[in-house]
């Protein structure tokens, strides 16, 4: 009996679209790559006064019209200038800062944080100041 032999067809894998696939891969990686950046509140510390070691540093007194004191206590309450210590929520803090900035565009905000106060409380105040575009922020401790 004669067996019908199948005719061998030419087998080939189409390679014309490899370039498209490779470019798609490149585009995918380009669009999903995230460059590593750090995110945080940036601040420039004041330079040490050159002769502060000898106690010659000049001190100037600033009134409430030029400087606002924000003293953060151990329990997170805040003394604003000479007021009594109390808890100030974000919205109120924003309003106070805005009002102070309206009074004086160059208002200096002095954030005095107690050594035992939480870092979080200090960041909260500095964040509010930054959010309200206050530029002159000074950090100190007692």
């Amino acid at each position: 009996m004669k067996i019908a032999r199948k005719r061998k067809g030419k087998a080939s894998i189409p390679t014309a679209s490899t370039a498209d696939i490779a470019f798609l891969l490149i585009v995918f990686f380009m669009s999903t790559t995230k460059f590593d950046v750090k995110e945080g509140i940036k601040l420039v510390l004041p330079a040490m006064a050159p002769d502060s070691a000898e106690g010659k540093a000049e001190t100037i007194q600033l009134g409430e019209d030029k400087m606002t004191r924000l003293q953060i206590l151990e329990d997170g309450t805040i003394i604003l200038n000479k007021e009594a210590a109390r808890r100030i929520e974000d919205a109120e803090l924003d309003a106070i800062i805005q009002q102070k900035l309206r009074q004086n565009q160059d208002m200096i905000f002095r954030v005095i944080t107690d050594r035992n106060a939480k870092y979080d409380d200090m960041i909260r105040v500095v964040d509010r100041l930054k959010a309200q575009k206050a530029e002159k922020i000074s950090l100190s401790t007692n």
Partner: protein
Amino acid sequence: MAKINRTRDRDIEIPQGSMGDIAFLLLLFFMVTTVFVQEKQFWVERDRWPKAQSIERIPRNNTATIYVMKNETILIDDVPSKIESEEDVYVRNALTAKKAENPEIVVCFRTDRETKYGAMSDVMRQLQDAQTLVVAFEAQQRD
């Protein structure tokens, strides 16, 4: 009158057969040159950072990271230390060296939000001594 010979239009074709090879070469190049940033240990987890709204983005290549843990241990380059007294100038020396390497250095604090401010104050005092004045307090974006 001279007869101008017109050149015959030829079929011009750019060979595209090697396009795939070029694309794969590009892909390989990026795969080989990509460097993943690796930190030996993440001393203060991200969810322990304070939350803030007015966050700026700081490119990583000019930064030095200082971790301050809740127990007031300070880590620079994974070396732990503690500021016990005024004479302890480890932070100052470490940062002076970094400043000499890169004058535009930004010191990033990764501090646990429960840390007492005193530890941060001591570190910042030494940063002033080392003349590294640009600092950033790393924080999570608040919703």
